[in-house]
């Protein structure tokens, strides 16, 4: 929080020195609009995360996505990340909820990486119009194996870094 605050303050000062008060206010107005637009989605994301944490049965999640869930758990995590609607305001609360109800780092990494690389939300809203269809489809095809690989690597490193957590 403090790091970000300092970073923002320094950047704002630089903008002010370069563009004056007008530049500072222009950016502020733009960002305030953005913030207002995002706010309801943040609420939706928090509610989604809370509901999911509440209704998912812990034993089933830890069996399906836990440390011993194997490649299948990574695939489920990746598939879940790919279909998850919304932006960072949904993906991170939901990922956090999964961790809380028994998913391991590996499956959660697969989910987050899949959301960020394959998730359709960002691809449809931003990448297609800006980068073009060819590049986007090509990029997504290349990215397909990455979430499961990242999850597998995460799990592999995790059990070696924190051997105490390896129970069951």
């Amino acid at each position: 929080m403090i790091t970000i605050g300092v970073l923002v303050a320094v950047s704002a000062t630089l903008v002010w020195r370069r563009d004056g008060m007008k530049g500072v206010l222009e950016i502020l107005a733009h960002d305030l609009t953005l913030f207002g637009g995002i706010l309801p989605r943040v609420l939706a994301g928090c509610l989604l995360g809370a509901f999911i944490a509440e209704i998912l049965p812990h034993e089933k999640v830890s069996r399906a996505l836990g440390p011993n869930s194997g490649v299948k758990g990574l695939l489920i995590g990746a598939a879940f990340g790919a279909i998850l609607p919304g932006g960072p305001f949904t993906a991170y609360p939901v990922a956090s909820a999964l961790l809380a109800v028994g998913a391991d780092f590996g499956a959660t990494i697969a989910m987050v990486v899949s959301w960020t690389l394959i998730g359709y939300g960002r691809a449809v809203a931003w990448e297609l119009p800006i980068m073009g269809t060819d590049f986007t489809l090509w990029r997504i095809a290349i990215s397909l194996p990455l979430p499961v690989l990242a999850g597998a690597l995460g799990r592999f490193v995790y059990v070696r870094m924190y051997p105490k957590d390896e129970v069951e």
Partner: protein
Amino acid sequence: MSAALLIDIILWGSVAAVGFIAFQRGPKVLKASLREGSMDFINIVPRIALGVIGSGYIAAVIPQEVITGWLGPNSGWVGVLAAVIAGAATPGGPVIGFSIGAVALKAGGGPPQVIAYVVAWALFAFQRLLLWEIPFMPARFVWFRAAVSIPFPFLAAAIAMAIGRP
């Protein structure tokens, strides 16, 4: 219908669907999760306010030419490495990240370098880690995930080099 509206509909539809499941489990479950979700929301808003309202300034002081300059054509693995660093350093939201990628592509940047840039930006743009991921997730998980993700932009570039452009 715009893509953003469609995404909003899917998003709130999902909230309604899981909310209904919670409601079926009884009003206590529904109330508990509503309270939990609202508390998360209240806790997170100030952090996001700082991030979103401040991010414009961070984006304004990092010149885009510097980032696109690193992704030059025929830059090989050095270019890929530069692309990964540039992707991690790119501030701002998806518009900025993809626009820089599109500019680099148009300016003659190699597709493997551009794909490394886009993938690195998606995986660990520092601003998204700090503003979005850290507030919502345990910090230990975030750093661990970012560290584990480091090889993957390089892998994406290697695959891109191997299969070539469509």
